[in-house]
């Protein structure tokens, strides 16, 4: 996009919707796998982690995009890491102060947002090449896509593994002794992730193919 070219609504909506579906960080780009598998034992953890990543992603994208002509190319990666680290530290401080329970549950994965592949990938491949508003929309889309994905995984693992839904016990499940503990263990995490990857990609690919065919 040229410097003085006027932004169209499509330029803002496309990165947002792409971030949720076409470029979904968890199921399409397979990025941020570590926190995805580690913290999805509870649905609330998924929401907390997802929103934290979204916050860091939106602000990092905005700043990197605004400073893309100021940051020298040779030191762009350290500069991006510095920006991402600033926002992830802010998230860590705020969570520790106002949401101590979530802070203790997310544990090490909160400060580790700094090295989350999703952030560096988006900052390098999108924000450093695009204008501020589309970059913000990309951050929002990718972040919300990540939040939805890991929350869904959390709901499935929590429901099947612990017999609870957002922390509320489902008595019928528990009384029937149905919860399968394996689903809240790492092995269950891989299983749910694998199944969801297959389902998500099959659906998205089918929709994309149909779109291509109708265009032709």
């Amino acid at each position, binding site marked *: 996009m040229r410097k003085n070219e006027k932004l169209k609504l499509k330029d803002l909506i496309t990165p947002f919707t792409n971030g949720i579906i076409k470029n979904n960080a968890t199921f399409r780009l397979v990025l941020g796998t570590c926190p995805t598998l580690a913290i999805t*034992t*509870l649905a609330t953890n998924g929401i907390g982690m997802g929103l934290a990543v979204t916050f860091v992603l939106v602000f990092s994208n905005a700043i990197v995009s605004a*400073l893309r002509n*100021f*940051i*020298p190319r*040779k*030191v762009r990666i*350290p*500069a991006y890491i*510095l*920006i991402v*680290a*600033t926002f992830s*530290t*802010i998230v860590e*401080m*705020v969570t*520790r*102060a*106002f949401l*101590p329970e979530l802070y*203790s*549950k997310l*544990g*090490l994965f909160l400060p580790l947002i700094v090295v989350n592949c999703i952030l560096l990938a988006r900052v390098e491949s999108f924000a450093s090449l695009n204008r501020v508003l589309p970059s913000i929309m990309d951050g929002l889309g990718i972040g919300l896509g990540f939040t939805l994905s890991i929350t869904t995984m959390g709901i499935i693992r*929590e429901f099947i*593994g*612990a*017999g*609870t839904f957002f922390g509320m016990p489902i008595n019928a499940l528990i009384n029937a002794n149905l*919860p399968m*503990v394996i689903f*809240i*263990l790492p092995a269950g995490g891989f299983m749910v992730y694998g199944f969801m990857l297959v389902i998500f990609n099959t659906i998205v690919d089918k929709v994309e193919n149909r779109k291509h065919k109708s265009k032709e």
Partner: protein
Amino acid sequence: MSNMSEEIKSTDIEDVQSSTIEKPKKVKKGLNESVKIVLAITILALVSALLLSVINNYTKVDKEKALMDKISSVYSVAIVETIDVDKIIGYSPVEKTQIEKYVRAEDGAHIVVAKSKKGYSAAGVSLIVVIKDDKILKIEVFSHSETPGLGTKAFAEEHFNKYIGLSINELNVDQFDKKTCEQFIVISATRSSGAVYEAILAAVRVVKYYGA
């Protein structure tokens, strides 16, 4: 022939001239780039530090206050004394356990915040143990990062109830007693319930040494 040598000479002189002229330019360009790089990173780091220090001012957590608030919510009797565990004669903490706080209430109850690092999560299990008249009166979880639905079974009320009313003299605090430990282990939450046992034992141990 003479013409050729003249040509060579003239081109040589031109090369030498151009290299002597371009060198300072290149050096200057390189210096400019280095300055630009240093400047960019310095400005970014300074702005980042400033932003973080401002936010830190508003989000600073007073751990001591949070701990005391939690203690008073668990045991509402007024706290009259804070005991420094390092000054208790003969007492030394057991490996992988830590006494985070030891206070005494107005009615003589001992309130100990004990932590065991033997749980499933590296963060450990921290418990508030209230001991009164040489008996365990109350146990509450202060903090943990155990697996929900699995490790958290160790924090169920019915499990804690096994300890309530237990005399501190019944527990051997200086030697690991496998038989006693086994009766407090929760199936499928072995490590977490082991951490609970260790934390309670650490609390009882410090109270025993203080009493002695």
